């Protein structure tokens, strides 16, 4: 079992969502990042883009109200916000490659202190699942990662160098785990905020790279 300490998955996504700016075009990967579409953005207008060409989707459809022709990239039945548009796959990825996506939030197996990350292939696996991650990681203006701090067997996911094949090199800006918020800086991995119930020593012990730790680490900002 994964370590249940610290932030819930929804809290992790809520915290990353606070970094979104008004008007941003946001693409969410499958897994934990999907929960970001549930976040309360207050006055900010956030436009969700999905790889299958849905631009401006809203909350999940209520059971029985699903439009069978309408899913997000995770195959979930979503609704459309006013102003939504739908394009085909090549246009959806044209938006990605040409730099129109402000941030992509992706899951990962490992993130390295140099901003490399790996999320498509596990150690020793033949093949894997790339989906849209390589296009997004190479081209989005910001790459945020949301993942559990350690693997099921307790190994750190924040590492010096990725041991498994990378999705893209040097692209990650920000990482949220159940233990805290981390920023990839030119000097390495910095602990920015720490989860309730977790100590700096806990974080260091569960992290596989050097951490830049300020003298006072603020708690993770949470809503309400």
């Amino acid at each position, binding site marked *: 079992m994964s370590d249940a300490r610290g932030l819930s998955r929804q809290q992790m996504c809520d915290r990353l969502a606070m970094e979104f700016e008004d008007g941003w075009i946001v693409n969410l990967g*499958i897994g934990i990042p999907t929960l970001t579409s549930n976040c309360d953005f207050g006055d900010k207008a956030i436009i969700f883009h999905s*790889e*299958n*060409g*849905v631009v401006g989707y809203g909350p999940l459809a209520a*059971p*029985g109200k*699903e*439009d*069978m*022709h*309408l*899913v997000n*990239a*995770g*195959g979930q039945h979503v609704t459309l916000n006013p102003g939504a548009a*739908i*394009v*085909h*796959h*090549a246009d*959806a*990825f044209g938006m*990605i*490659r040409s730099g129109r996506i402000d941030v992509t939030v992706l899951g990962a197996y490992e993130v390295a202190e140099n901003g490399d990350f790996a999320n498509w*292939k596990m150690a020793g*696996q*033949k*093949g*894997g*699942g*790339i*989906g*849209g*991650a*390589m*296009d997004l990681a*190479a*081209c989005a203006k910001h790459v945020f990662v949301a993942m559990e701090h350690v693997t099921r067997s307790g190994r750190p996911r924040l590492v010096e160098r990725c041991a498994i*094949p*990378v*999705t*893209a*090199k040097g692209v990650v800006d920000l990482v949220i785990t159940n233990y805290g918020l981390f920023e990839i800086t030119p000097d390495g991995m910095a602990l920015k905020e720490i989860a309730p119930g977790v100590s700096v020593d806990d974080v260091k012990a569960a992290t596989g790279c050097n951490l830049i730790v300020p003298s006072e680490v603020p708690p993770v900002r949470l809503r309400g």
Partner: protein
Amino acid sequence: MPKSKVYVDFDAAVADIPDNVTIGFGGFAVVGQPVNLTGALAAQGAKSLTCVSNGLRGGATLPDDAPTLEWLVKNDQVKKVICAFTAPTRASQKLAFTEYYESGRIDAELVPQGTLAERMRAAGAGIPAFYTPAAVGTELAEGRETRVFNGREYLLEEALPLDYALIRAYQADEFGNLRFARAQRNFNPLMAMAAKVTIVEVEEDILPLGAIDPDDVHLSGIFVHRLVKVPPAPEGWWPMRASEIAARAAQKGASR
């Protein structure tokens, strides 16, 4: 008067597909997925196929006994798959394809999803190759041609032409002009443009010429060759809600 593009059923529409061809299977997470044509191709039995598809299974809105590319895999009809996922998208899922691939019985080419779409768009647009930033610096780019433009490294990707495309659309007229509903477009127009022969399963009755306003045509009939109307369930396959799948499974269990 040219030959009609309207075929009586799925079997007739796929009857002449030979062995050793490359076939695109459209759709994304069941939406726009050619479920009925895939079933007909499994029954038809063409072998040594190279299959191009985002993934193999589709999604949660198809019951387990609905036809997917998995049927062709289990029938030993597939030589190679070109896709964005060789692994299932959910850890709980198991794919025959993954087993066949890992044991070497089927070859696979794993491609970033945007590159997969663009390779077919390029084929349909008469462009032999292009450069993309996706996959630069990864295992997929090892030993391949890259080039720097404006200070950034890009990977050379070649167009992916298809012999056949199997797709699903919402409306068609007799010329094959297509309209898609909501997220049904996905890979479908790209595969149709990349293919020599495009076969479409159509959800509504095939319309007379002029019934679709030219402004509303999403894909010109120039790229479309064969049309089959999807009959109502249970004769034809339609995506189902989880509750409908559960009710259907319970009914099947009871009648057994």
